[in-house]
């Protein structure tokens, strides 16, 4: 049995992240089509495609601004990574004793690193995302997306380079591979989270439309 109410989160995402110009019309079209019998899967696909199309259009129209946003983001990321790394290294002994784990084991090293140095790097990454979004108020989603995507590409390349450089005699276990992949996405995710935090404070033209 199909519902007459379209996916609530999908509608919220569309109203929050679609380009302001035709936001109401697109959401209205999606709701109309859903009530005509389109599936929830179709609805979600259309919402995601519309958001991505809006980001692509904004980036195509503001290429120089996008380059500037990426440059700004990376400069901040690089500048903040030094104090974050130093502070994280200073925290490592305390984290290790708090976890009370075997320092020789991989899992101990991983979690000590994650909960000290990496955690602060994630905070630094979130701050860079917040600043990039705040400084590009009219285009915050597209600028944030292109910056986070550039970090994701860099992190993936770094992991591939790291894996390729390892001797064949030291194969990596599936757990290590999974954790490495997790850390690859956590930095861009932190950037996005920081930017979203800034974005929620940026006035949204849609909010002028009364709740229906």
């Amino acid at each position, binding site marked *: 049995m199909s519902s007459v109410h379209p996916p609530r989160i999908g509608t919220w995402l569309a109203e929050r992240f679609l380009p302001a*110009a035709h936001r109401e*019309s*697109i959401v209205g*079209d999606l709701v*109309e089509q859903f009530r005509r019998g389109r599936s929830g899967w179709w609805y979600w696909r259309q919402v995601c*495609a*519309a958001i991505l199309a809006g980001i692509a259009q904004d980036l195509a129209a503001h290429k120089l601004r996008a380059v500037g946003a990426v440059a700004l983001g990376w400069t901040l990321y690089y500048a903040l990574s030094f104090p974050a790394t130093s502070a994280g290294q200073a925290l490592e002994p305390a984290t290790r004793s708090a976890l009370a784990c075997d320092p020789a084991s991989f899992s101990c090293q991983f979690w000590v690193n994650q909960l000290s140095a990496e955690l602060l790097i994630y905070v630094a990454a979130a701050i860079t995302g917040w600043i990039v979004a705040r400084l590009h108020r009219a285009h915050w989603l597209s600028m944030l997306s292109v910056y986070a995507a550039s970090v994701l590409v860099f992190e993936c390349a770094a992991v591939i380079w790291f894996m390729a450089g390892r001797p064949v005699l030291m194969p990596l276990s599936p757990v290590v591979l999974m954790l490495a992949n997790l850390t690859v996405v956590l930095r861009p995710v932190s950037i996005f989270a920081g930017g979203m935090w800034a974005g929620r404070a940026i006035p949204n033209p849609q909010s002028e439309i009364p709740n*229906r």
Partner: protein
Amino acid sequence: MPRSEFLGGFELLVLLALLRVGDEAYGVPIAEAIEESSGRDVALGSVYVTLGRLEDKGLVASQVGEPTAVRGGRAKTYFRITAAGLRAVRHAQRTLTNLWSSVPLKGATS
């Protein structure tokens, strides 16, 4: 013809769909007309991005309609082709016809 009136492939499809749908042209019927003709799924977001670009070029004009209950109280945006848009479509048709007429199909291999 000004450079801004040269049309991309999807832009031409959207303009032709607009002409086909007529006065009641908004996102849904435009997307459906393209889907029927091309046999491919069309994202509504892409249709609106293209319509926005065509509007910026002055090839399309829009008008906001009344909110309706079936759309959750949201209004439709109706689109119509402008005189410049019509010229651009005719120009594209002439260009394609000229090119097709000089394509040697007989010797083509699959």
